């Protein structure tokens, strides 16, 4: 349809202009792996020392579910009730907090939603679900980079990453690795290189036909 093509190309022009005006790349959460990184970083800011990330892709039921659980300080019910409001934040350096509402928006665009459960003193759990095949579902993105960035950037926090795709399963648990490494820190470059290769290989196998 010509009208739609014109629309699309004018949208593209606008976004190119936007990007140029910035002198930078276009700024947004391009994929789900960036949302996951963002929510996990929230958990670290909340003082968590254990963060569990679970991604479940069920192609038969056409669902994609992402859960990020932390054992940080949690939220009071009053705060929890308004945490998906884009103008809410715990930060004092900036007035507007956006991460969770952006993730919720992404889930809603793919026939899904995002839910948060939190208990003060115990932690927070964020669950996003969406239709796997929905045309507006954001791509998974690079989970290997997200997980390795979390481990390297926060070597005192433990991460458990579970990724299930149609029955196949990949698991990485830094608690086991930490125990084996003894005094060698998780952010040791040699350890990071090894874990990154393991992640890339594991996720490739998960995505094989």
């Amino acid at each position: 349809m010509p009208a739609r093509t014109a629309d699309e190309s004018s949208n593209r022009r606008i976004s190119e202009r936007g990007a140029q005006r910035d002198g930078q790349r276009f700024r947004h959460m391009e994929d789900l792996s960036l949302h996951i990184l963002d929510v996990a970083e929230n958990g670290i800011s909340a003082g968590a020392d254990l963060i569990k990330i679970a991604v479940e892709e069920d192609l038969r039921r056409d669902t994609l579910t992402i859960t990020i659980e932390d054992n940080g300080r949690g939220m009071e019910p009053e705060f929890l009730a308004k945490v998906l409001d884009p103008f809410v934040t715990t930060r004092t350096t900036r007035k507007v907090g956006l991460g969770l509402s952006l993730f919720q928006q992404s889930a809603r665009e793919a026939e899904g939603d995002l839910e948060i459960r939190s208990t003060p003193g115990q932690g927070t759990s964020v669950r996003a679900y969406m239709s796997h095949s929905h045309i507006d579902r954001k791509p998974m993105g690079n989970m290997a980079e997200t997980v390795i960035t979390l481990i390297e950037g926060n070597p005192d926090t433990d991460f458990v990453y579970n990724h299930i795709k149609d029955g196949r399963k990949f698991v990485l648990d830094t608690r086991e690795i930490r125990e084996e490494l003894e005094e060698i820190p998780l952010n040791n470059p040699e350890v990071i290189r090894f874990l990154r290769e393991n992640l890339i290989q594991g996720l490739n196998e998960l995505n094989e036909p």
Partner: protein
Amino acid sequence: MPKISIQDLKKIKEKERARMVLREGEYRAKITVHMGTCGIAAGAREIMTYFRDRIGQENLTDVILTNSGCAGLCAKEPMITVELADAAPVKYVLLDKEKAQRIFDEHVLAGKPVEDYALARGSETRAT
């Protein structure tokens, strides 16, 4: 699925233990990538990947790469802070891979801050 092999981890442990004895213990440089919502949306993870690759390629054992949250200057993301031992930290703003490359070569490796990309020069306490 590739199971993390205990043997591989043991090998790394022994090798790195030997290296840590050689090393003086302290890090020579610390690179902090700001990883708030704003930073992530602006490409901070790619900047982190770039530095991780360079540290690996140069086989550096005395440079540490880490994360921090939002610094309150969201319009200037991606941002990093580079700290060399015995020198004042330098914050760099509006980064891309090319800028990251210059910062790594000139500041992290050669010890000379890249003023072109730094947040500010001098101190506001000395008004002129």
